[in-house]
């Protein structure tokens, strides 16, 4: 693959793909080029386990025909191979059109052109610093984690960066050219309790930002190491969370998982148009309390709240702010162009693919609950007695709205006061039920987006997404744990 030596070399290739596709009979063609660099550094105890650099450069072509789509891709920019790629996409689209009974056509629109302001400003781009600079960040986090931890059996430090060019054109003559970027510094400490159980503590700082992030308050490698070490130490004395239904205060990051996993996926247009989502046909209905507002936004105020910079999706649509749930009322779904047209809504800029090897599908950008009015103290007071659940190691949701998330740690709260730490615990329930039990939200909005982790859907894994919110007080949540 010829990469970026002349700014319009790849654009010409993409335009050729569009032209070829149309000549072969496609009604509409989209062609995109990704040229992405991914770097992963992982140190486990005193050994560097991973020093990895991945280069993802390739072209993906979507051809539309008769309300169906065909997709193909190649890692080559050889003319013959590009022709084969376009040909495969056209043939797939035509074969699919014969059996497609639900058509996802869309109207033509004026061409889109990206702008200078679509470049996210940063002081120290990760591409400008050498490997030694980045390994030192990891070393500093691990050294501090060891200082603050206790009974440590394993300490792991990780640094990740993903950046590069994304170029897009289509049959409308759109030209969208922007740079993706996300960085992540994380530390995990595993400690052994007296009874031989293993417990964890995690710290991280991340998002679309320059490396200057790791020089700011609460985000230095030392802050990250301290967080991981001290939380693992605290977990040594934590008890298992009792199983059952309790009131809950849910911390920002975990609230983000609720917004993304439990609600966001249900609002994605592809599952709505086929009736697979319980949100199908429910626009205008009250699903939650007044405290529950959820938005998806490709370009939030990252310096203030954090998050991921996604000015355009992989169909060249601007990823503007979409209010999905407005004070408890369902307002919008998250769309690609086809699902938006089918449901008579505007496209929302949510058609995304992990990289050139995958067809873009409706995915989220930054999805979060909006903040409320409570201070932390007022939130604890409102909680009264229950579980304060913090951070997360992941979550999953079913198409009926059922969810399960794991909180990395937490506290048992009694009469508005934090009483004692509790171990890793899972929260489960149904999102539609949970939204009707949101009693209040704190003032502080935080959005988190990382290199490690990421969203998985339809065989496309680890798509960076932002998620977050304030802290939420929930009337009742089912906690896993130990039944007596």
């Amino acid at each position: 693959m010829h990469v970026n030596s002349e700014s319009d070399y790849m654009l010409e290739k993409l335009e050729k793909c569009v032209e070829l596709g149309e000549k072969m009979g496609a009604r509409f063609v989209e062609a995109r080029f990704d040229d992405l660099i991914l770097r992963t550094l992982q140190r486990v105890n005193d050994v560097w386990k991973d020093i990895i650099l991945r280069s993802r450069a390739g072209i993906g072509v979507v051809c539309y025909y008769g309300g169906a789509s065909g997709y193909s891709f190649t890692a080559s920019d050889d003319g013959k191979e590009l022709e084969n790629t376009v040909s495969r996409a056209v043939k797939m689209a035509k074969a699919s059109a014969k059996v497609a009974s639900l058509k996802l056509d869309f109207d033509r629109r004026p061409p889109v052109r990206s702008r200078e302001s679509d470049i996210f400003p940063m002081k120290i781009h990760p591409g400008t610093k050498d490997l030694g600079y980045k390994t030192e960040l990891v070393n500093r986090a691990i050294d501090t984690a060891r200082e603050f931890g206790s009974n440590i059996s394993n300490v792991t430090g990780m640094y990740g960066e993903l950046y590069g060019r994304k170029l897009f054109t289509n049959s409308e003559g759109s030209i969208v050219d922007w740079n993706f970027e996300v960085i992540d510094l994380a530390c995990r400490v595993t400690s052994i309790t007296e009874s031989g159980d293993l417990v964890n503590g995690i710290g991280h700082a991340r998002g679309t930002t320059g490396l200057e992030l790791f020089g700011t308050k609460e985000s230095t490698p030392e802050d990250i190491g301290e967080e991981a070490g001290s939380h693992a130490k605290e977990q040594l004395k934590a008890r298992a969370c009792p199983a059952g239904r309790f009131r809950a205060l849910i911390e920002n990051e975990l609230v983000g998982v609720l917004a993304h996993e439990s609600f966001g996926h249900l609002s994605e247009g592809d599952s709505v148009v086929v009736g697979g989502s319980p949100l199908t046909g429910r626009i205008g209905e009250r699903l939650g309390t007044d405290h529950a507002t959820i938005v998806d936004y490709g370009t939030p105020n990252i310096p203030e709240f954090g998050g991921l910079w996604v000015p355009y999706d992989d169909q060249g649509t601007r990823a503007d702010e979409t209010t999905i749930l407005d004070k408890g009322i369902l307002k919008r779904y998250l769309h690609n162009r086809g699902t938006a047209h089918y449901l008579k809504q505007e496209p929302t800029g949510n058609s995304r693919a992990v990289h050139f090897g995958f067809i873009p599908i409706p995915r989220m950008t930054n999805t979060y609950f909006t903040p409320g009015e409570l201070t932390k103290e007022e939130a604890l007071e409102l909680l009264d007695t229950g579980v304060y659940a913090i951070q997360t190691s992941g979550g999953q949701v079913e198409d009926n709205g059922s969810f399960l998330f794991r909180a990395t740690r937490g506290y048992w709260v009694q009469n508005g006061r934090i009483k004692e730490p509790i171990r890793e615990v899972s929260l489960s329930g149904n999102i539609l039920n949970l939204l009707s039990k949101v009693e209040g939200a704190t003032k502080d909005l935080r959005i988190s987006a990382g290199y490690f982790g990421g969203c998985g859907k339809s065989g496309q894994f680890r798509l960076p997404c932002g998620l977050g919110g304030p802290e939420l007080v929930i009337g009742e949540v089912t906690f896993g744990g130990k039944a007596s």
Partner: protein
Amino acid sequence: MKYENLKDELLSTIDTGLKYARTVDNEAEFELYLFYQNRAGVSITQGVVEASEGIIEGNAVRVMRQNSVSFASSSGISIDRIRRSVNEALASLRSVSIKDERFKGFCKPKKPGREGAFTSKILDLSKEELIDYARNMMKEGQEFEKRIKTVGSECSAEWGGFAVGNTQGLQQASRSAINSCEVYCIAVEGEERRTGYEFDITRERLIRTGGLGAKAAQRAVSLLGARKLNKTTVLPTIWEPMSAAAYIGVSLGQSASGQHVVEGRSPIAEKVGEEIANSKLTIIDNGQNPSGINTDAIDAEGYPQQKTTLVNRGKLNQFLFDTYYAHIYGSESTGNCSRRARATHPFPYETSPLIRPKNLEVKPGSKNLDDLIASIDGQAILIVDFPIGIFHSNVSTGEFSAVAQSVFLVENGAKKWPLQPVAVSGSFYTGLKQLLDVGSDLKTTVFNVETPTLVFDGFSIVG
């Protein structure tokens, strides 16, 4: 590229790539991995069709010099792209001194194992045939009955292979062709929505899609009318093969990895020879099962794949290793180096080597599902499909908490009614000791675990 000459072409490129690497640095040791796969897939959901076909190709290079190792990968297998990886990996080594004294070199040449079963019918599958398969499964599900509201189906066919070469003189390759399909049906009644799922995956024959749509629909409908368990308690749980496979894959599949053992994250690290499970449990990892989806002649670093007994009648027998961790542990590789979890990493060249089971097999017992249910005194929970959240469990703590969506109440030896989702939690490792029985209904699953139904005691249930 054709299937017949795929190995020759990949090995020829390996040779060229290694020669180039030697010219850049003749003191360093190099390993080059190439992957090439033609993949076609079709999904139909309620009449919305998406189809794709493309060639997944890429290279990965590891370089070692004076106990420092680095990794770089690129999409594409042209010599230009291989050069890029070689140069990037070398640049990493040159820019920072990162020692790993435990790294003793790449895999030495050995006689390869066998490739898995192969049928050329998979190579000949056309996109129209894949679309037909998917459409027929969807139609079957939709026509099953009125309460089936949404049906989605997917079919895919892939063929390809990989080659590994290194400056120790190793140059080996392996090929496979696999086709698979899956269908899910959502049954709706009032506010209640239940999902049923069926699949087929094989390398020996063409997929059999007939009946799968109806079975998935039947399963979804059978879960309607669920009642609330309405208590927090401890009960026996009966895990049908799909859910049992998730259990085994997440627990032993991870904790038996030599990486977790060496790095202090496996709670069974010190337990070789000890009883870690009920004596009814025997588990083998079989990288040479001809029908196994992950069966190859070599693993991802070129070591021959083999058969390894992990648990023998309840006793921990052996861990899984690649060359690196085997050396640290003081053992031999078991041919378990891997670059992918098939479902989540379709671009395996991007993954640096890690240890993964190939094809886990749980030895079946003598009772079928009805007998297992009949043997229950009092109440138990029958878990039909894999519980959500189970894959987010933590290998080091072994504690899990998952929500079982597709569940039935079992009472005094009889299957009663479907239940609303229940949270199941406990410790994987305590669970293995509290295993009550192993069924005879052996099934291959999408998680590369072949298992019958397993019955456990002692897990917390919240419903």
